[in-house]
């Protein structure tokens, strides 16, 4: 069965979601979502549940003093799978994050996100960015 997804709306939602607009996060995520944050930096973890995701996005914004953002470049939907090539950017102290990433969302029957995977173009630079102590 093919799910009708408004790609332009999804594109806007992805940008707002990553800007920490928590009202979008609760609306878009399943209660028992599995949200994988890859690699070895302090924020890396498999988060379970929408509250953990909201806490994570709040922390991302706090750590970057509100500078973290994600700009969708390309995206596609097949059935209930969503792929988005993003440019993610942010600043912590004098460190700058600016690279591409691939976001994968697996949606449930209610079209809410059940699982999220992320692949960074330069994982080592992302690890360094999130591990750096700006204080």
């Amino acid at each position, binding site marked *: 069965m093919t799910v009708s997804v408004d790609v332009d709306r999804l594109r806007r939602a992805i940008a707002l979601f990553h800007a920490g607009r928590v009202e979008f996060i609760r609306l878009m995520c399943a209660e028992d979502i599995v949200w994988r944050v890859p690699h070895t930096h302090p924020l890396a973890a498999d988060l379970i549940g929408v509250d953990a995701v909201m806490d994570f996005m709040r922390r991302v914004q706090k750590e970057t003093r509100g500078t973290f953002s994600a700009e969708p470049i390309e995206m*596609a939907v097949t059935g209930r*799978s969503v792929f988005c090539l993003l440019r993610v950017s942010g600043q912590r102290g004098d460190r700058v994050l600016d690279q591409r990433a691939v976001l994968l969302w697996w949606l449930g029957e209610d079209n809410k996100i059940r699982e999220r995977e992320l692949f960074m173009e*330069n*994982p080592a630079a992302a690890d360094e960015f999130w591990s750096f102590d700006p204080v």
Partner: protein
Amino acid sequence: MTQTQTQLEFGKFLRSGYLSFARLDLDEIENGLAPEIQWHTPGRHPLSGTCNGIEEVKDWIRASAEMTNGTFRVDLIRIVGDRLHAAVIATYRGERKGMTLEMPGVQTFRLDPKRNLVVEARIFVYDDEFVNRFWSA
């Protein structure tokens, strides 16, 4: 052609390309690539960088096979895409100098729908430090 049919066609097209990759059928692979293709590989190892054009992509594929004694392969898990873009989710596997590569990864593709040719491919890997060690050893 409906959107779903087009999605299936691009998915089938990419699956066929990966089968050709597994057989090292470079002529078949060439048929699916635009002459001006850009093929990006991340990291800091001998295969990293951007291949510009079909011949450089074929050199990259030959090198990946030679460096692993033909063990490098890409096992497809899922293809997500529409008529212009797709992401191939896969497990990258290979053996090299006592190391075993078994790594989740994604390769994104951009298609020129008029010519039905891939104009850009971009690889993302889960653990770039290990990938750097694997290909640099």
